């Protein structure tokens, strides 16, 4: 495997390798919230300082308008990042696929980033 010059300087991480919890859930019927809890404080700090998680990144990952990202909060006590978005439809509305919102984390499982 040949490394490009960029890859020599930084390392590529898979979120699922550095996180112990990746989950989604309704926060009330009108919001979906995503939690990522990191395995170790060092990686959490690095991800936090590099600003990997932000509204733009999340909107692109899920194919939603950036304005629908209500907040990205870094929560140090739990070495966790919480992202809350407007639910594409209120829970249980016609067209629903996941009433509890508990399986919408899957795109995050495949997220990769450079640090």
């Amino acid at each position: 495997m040949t490394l490009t010059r960029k890859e020599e300087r930084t390392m590529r991480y898979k979120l699922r390798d550095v996180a112990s919890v990746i989950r989604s859930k309704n926060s009330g019927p009108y919001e979906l919230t995503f939690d990522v809890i990191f395995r170790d404080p060092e990686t959490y700090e690095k991800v936090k300082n590099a600003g990997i998680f932000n509204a733009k990144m999340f909107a692109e990952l899920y194919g939603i308008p950036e304005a629908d990202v209500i907040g990205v909060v870094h929560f140090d006590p739990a070495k966790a990042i919480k992202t809350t978005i407007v639910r594409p439809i209120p829970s249980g509305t016609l067209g629903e696929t996941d009433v509890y919102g508990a399986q919408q984390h899957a795109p995050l499982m495949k997220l990769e980033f450079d640090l």
Partner: protein
Amino acid sequence: MDELRILSPTAILGYGFPVESFEEGMKRKPHVIAVDAGSTDPGPYYLGAGKSFTDNNSVKRDLEIMIPAALEAGIPVIIGTAGGSGARPHVALTLELIKEIANEKGLTFKLAVIQSELDKELVREKFRAGEVTPLFPAKELTEKEIDEAVHIVAQMGEEPYIKALEMGADVILGGRSYDPSLFAALPIKNGFDKALALHMGKILECAAIAALPGSGSDSMFGYLQRDGFILEPLSPARKCTPLSVSAHTLYEKSNPYVLPGPGGALDLHGCTFTPVGDNKVKVAGTKFVPTDGYFVKLEGVRKVGYRTISCAGVMDPVMIAKIDEITAEVKKRVKNNFEHYGFQEFFLDFKIYGKGGVSLFNDTRSVSENNDNNESVPMPDELMIIIEAVGATREQANTICGFARSTLLHYGYEGRVATAGNLAFPFSPSDAEMGEVFEFNIYHLMKVDDPVSLFPATYMQFNQGKATGENNHPAHVHKTSFAKTQQGNENNDPNKKGGENHAV
């Protein structure tokens, strides 16, 4: 008193708990047993239909252990968001179970029943006065939405529970509640810090979910002290760690630092999580920031119609490759077939599992794969299709679903090789009625003047299992007995009952 102890047997009444854990909890001499019975997570159906998402037998099993144990120990039991959604039919469901248990076990106690379903006219008045505001991202309310709502409930704070405790209730059955309220009522009544009491309630309402390994069907114990609170899981298989407890603060919330509730918000910016011994955690530093005016959260649903579904599998590779095209054609065919028959307003959807059926978002797989070589998503070997029809009546839903199913079964798509049938049905009959369909249409804040009188309470006395009296206590009657109750309630016993002379 310097410590107030609370036993939380289970995360949702009816989810169960090991008797061993419960007994460990009773050994620690709790001052109250509290349990949350509801959630909006299961969706709008349950509030609309007046049914519970938990099973009656499972709820009775839990109550049958909790109520006699609490009465024997002389401590109150508080149940919040009765029947899962807390409207009148939900409260009635749990009330029936409590009556059965009282009767079967010959129990003697005073029961308080606190309702949370609101009269639509009250909501309309408040709306016209500009005192109902949407909770983002819900939309501005309209009078039409109020008219269409089937049940509207408000989440009560700790105040109605405190009132019921002061009235001497041994068992309190509450309608829709802000979950921490039922845990915080006794501590706040006894002068403990409101922020700590509510924060402890916020964690205890999920029972052992905040432990490691987490569980929604095991018990948790809380020790509220003057300068913080300690959490202890009651099964030796679990531990609370600073991480498990702080991480729980994230669960089902929008923002872990600010947790809004009736009358104000908890501010967790200054919180500390410290290990105590091997399996306990102490939390301190929580603040309560009152809002300007007292607001309660409203939840309401409207009826959409009736649903019928049909489940079928597909394994034919030609069909799988063309599935989007085929289902679009079938939709058109169904619409066309009933256009002149008067069935124009219906909802028909094909949920295709194996091909984006789970995602609430547009197909995100190609984005998330993130391969440099632009690899396309591989074709699945099998698909599961749920045909969903929602119509104005049960019959219309059946008609649309059945017609869509038979059309899809025999649809002659281009390149078709398997001409006997396009679908594999796992069941006969192939179609199933799902009953009424509801959707949330109210999720708003309403300003209230009095957080107690909005939630009317009824009191019943049981003597050896027989209900001997039933009394309504409207707010203005409460006022007198409340004053007397407080006077007679100044010692340190958190369960001292001061209201017995005035009730029943």
